[in-house]
């Protein structure tokens, strides 16, 4: 939360900026990164809280929620019992907030903004003002989403996917959702242009593309996905907005009957069009969620195992092919829509192909540990846990990518378990690892290890208790958006597992208290780092003063070698930083 102002100001000749230019409307990529990260962490907590409330209804359907239930209005929770409409709002907003306001802003806006310019040796992003605009467009988007809970009829409640025609006829919150999304899309557009240009133009001398740290590669590919996949959703959002506000029928078919009434619209639209446009964004979006995580994990695993990244070039080719392939797998979310077997076969095939580069990356990360002398700080624990957790998430996705198996599993809790294994103990663990790893660079202090380890172990157990039972609940046939599964015999049978998931979620929520305390406490009281490079890492972000001053590097660095030269035979120490000429 601080830019250097204590010790390192002698490196540049700066006019002292007023407070609001330095910390609020700052164009410094580090301040913007911190703004993004802190905002995103708040949204992650908020989104998680929505889910913890839903888990009460799922575990104890129709029972009043103790204590918390009394804080809500009669319309949403009469007598502390959640009404189905409110449950739907929480579900839709949980997904939206976690994906668009939590994980992506933290992974890309937070880590990308802070670390990428440092890793390429740049003084800032290529377009600092655009960078600032990106955050200040993102924030209103987020606030609009939050405010939509107070709209008439509540927030969006048609799922985070907002499928038409359900969303077309939903209450006003859906319009707010669409407007919020347009803000968020604009923000990510500004960010992604900046990331790509910075990576191409601002690499310092000697830093060729194949000497870029894998984290930067991951952000670079991610930026292309954001740049090219988001606009179709913007188009779809505009069309749905037109449907809702101007009465058009882009997504409304002729003769649509709602609650026994023929809908009074021109008709002739196509609800599947929304799904195609939505998933054309939202599948690449899955890779937007996962690629930065792979980048973070590869940094942490190499530095803590003191080994080079195994198969660096192969990994780069893999991540590029992941980027390309992610654009042609989207309709595997739509096998059940009756779009035809030819289409299904095509998307089934591409889906199987895209698993190959993912497996290559994961295998290479595991192989990088081979022969290392491994340290186990909290960041490394989270990074190591990422590998098996992401593997579970990835492998359980294969049955969903095959049409025959998907017929049974589609839209059940199995799907929820699958993608949460990818994103929660996968990406979110990697992001937490990143917080522990880069915290000393940002603040000059390490986070507390004891609290960190408590946080890790309770989270690891908790998150598996949440999601592992869901595979079985899903295979029993329970649909993912059910308000009360006990109303069906097959659901009642597995109600015990659902209650177990809920307890896991609350346990997991409790574990985050350790993180929150640690995050704020260590800012002032953490162990001070003795050097600018506390983990003995090789990449450029550790070559700056701590915390990096405005302009980052006192002198323009020069790069002499690849990013992961750890334990090089014959070298003076077990790491050879990129910017040091004599290894």
């Amino acid at each position, binding site marked *: 939360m601080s830019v250097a102002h204590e010790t390192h100001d002698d*490196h*540049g000749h700066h006019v002292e900026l007023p407070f609001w230019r330095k910390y609020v409307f700052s164009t410094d990529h580090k301040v913007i990164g911190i703004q993004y990260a802190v905002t995103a962490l708040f949204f992650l907590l908020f989104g998680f809280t929505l889910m913890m409330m839903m888990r009460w209804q799922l575990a104890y359907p129709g029972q009043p929620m103790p204590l918390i239930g009394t804080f809500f209005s009669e319309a949403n929770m009469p007598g502390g019992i959640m009404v189905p409409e409110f449950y739907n709002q929480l579900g839709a907003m949980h997904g939206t907030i976690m994906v668009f306001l939590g994980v992506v802003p933290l992974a890309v806006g937070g880590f990308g903004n802070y670390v990428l310019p440092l890793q390429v040796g*740049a*003084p*800032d*992003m*290529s*377009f*600092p003002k*655009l960078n600032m605009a990106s955050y200040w467009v993102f924030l209103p988007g987020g606030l609009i989403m939050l405010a939509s809970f107070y709209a008439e009829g509540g927030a969006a409640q048609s799922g985070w996917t907002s499928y038409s025609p359900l969303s077309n006829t939903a209450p006003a919150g859906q319009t707010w959702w669409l407007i919020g999304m347009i803000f968020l899309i604009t923000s990510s*557009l500004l960010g*992604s*242009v*900046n990331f*790509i*240009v910075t990576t*191409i*133009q*601002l690499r310092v001398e000697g830093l060729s593309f194949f000497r870029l740290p894998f984290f930067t590669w991951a952000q670079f590919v991610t930026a292309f996905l954001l*740049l*090219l*996949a*988001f*606009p*179709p959703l*913007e*188009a*779809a959002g*505009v*069309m749905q907005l*037109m449907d809702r506000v*101007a*009465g*058009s*029928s*882009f997504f409304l078919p002729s003769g649509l009957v709602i609650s026994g009434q023929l809908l009074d*619209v*021109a008709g*002739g*639209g*196509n609800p599947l*069009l929304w799904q195609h*446009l939505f998933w*054309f964004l939202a599948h690449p979006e899955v890779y937007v969620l996962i690629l930065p995580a792979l980048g973070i994990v590869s940094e942490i695993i190499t530095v803590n195992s003191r080994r080079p990244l195994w198969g660096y070039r192969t990994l780069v080719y893999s991540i590029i092919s992941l980027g390309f392939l992610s654009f042609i797998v989207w309709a595997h979310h739509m096998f059940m829509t009756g779009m035809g077997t030819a289409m299904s076969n095509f998307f089934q095939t591409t889906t199987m192909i895209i698993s190959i580069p993912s497996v290559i990356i994961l295998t290479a990360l595991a192989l990088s540990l081979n022969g290392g002398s491994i340290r186990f700080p909290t960041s490394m624990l989270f990074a190591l846990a990422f590998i098996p957790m992401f593997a579970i998430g990835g492998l359980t996705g294969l049955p969903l990518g095959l049409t025959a198996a998907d017929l049974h599993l589609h839209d059940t809790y199995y799907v929820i378990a699958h993608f949460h294994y990818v994103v929660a103990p996968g990406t979110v663990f990697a992001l937490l690892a990143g917080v522990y790893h880069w915290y000393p660079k940002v603040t000059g202090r390490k986070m507390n290890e004891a609290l960190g380890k408590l946080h890790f172990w309770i989270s690891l157990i908790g998150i598996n208790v949440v999601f592992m039972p869901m595979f079985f609940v899903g295979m029993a046939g329970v649909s993912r958006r059910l308000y009360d599964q006990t109303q069906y015999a097959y659901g009642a049978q597995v109600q015990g597992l659902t209650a177990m998931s809920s307890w896991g979620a609350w346990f997991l929520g409790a574990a985050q208290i350790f993180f929150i305390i640690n995050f704020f406490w260590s800012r002032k009281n953490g162990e001070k780092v003795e050097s600018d490079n506390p983990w003995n890492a090789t990449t450029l972000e550790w070559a700056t003063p701590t915390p990096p001053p*405005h*302009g*980052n*590097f*006192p*002198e*323009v660095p020069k790069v002499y070698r690849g990013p992961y030269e750890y334990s090089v035979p014959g070298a003076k120490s077990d790491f050879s930083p990129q910017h040091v000429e004599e290894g």
Partner: protein
Amino acid sequence: MDEIPYTVKPHPLSGLYSGKLGIWLFLASEVMLFGALFSSYILLRVGSDSWPVGSELLNIPLAMLNTFILIISSVTVVLGWASLKLGEHGKAKMYLWVTVLLAFGFLIVKGFEYGAKFSHHISPATNNFYATYFTMTGLHGLHIVGGIAVFVYLLTSGSKLLEENPEHYTNRIECAGLYWHFVDLVWIFLFPALYLL
């Protein structure tokens, strides 16, 4: 180390200054935006049993006029940029102001077109042909408004840069010009797709 490199001079590898690379990337995302809208238009049209013929419903002469206005404005942008390259600042500003005027001209013509439709109670709710027409031309119109804002800024308070760093200013005009050509190009596709086919 404070100066951000390659804001004015081209990068040896990409051959572009950062702004130009940035605007090309932005235009790539714009292609995806309008590409999605054109794809939706095709899908809705193919899936419909009674898609009207645009030339019978829309005003082709006005659209022709607008097409010429935009093409001329693209020429004036290039002339403005070329004059800056030659150091003829006054001439450059004149050409750019003409561009802005032409852009306003486009919007006024468009306004008459919209007005005629609204006065016949035709709106996006009428049918999906009109929904497509209003959405796509409306979004295109917003891009014209954006272009006007950029040029007016560069000609007024943004023109201080012309004295301080003419090359940087010329680059900005070039980037704005690239955007303007793109907006023109979108119209070149919209015109036949909506009015003629």
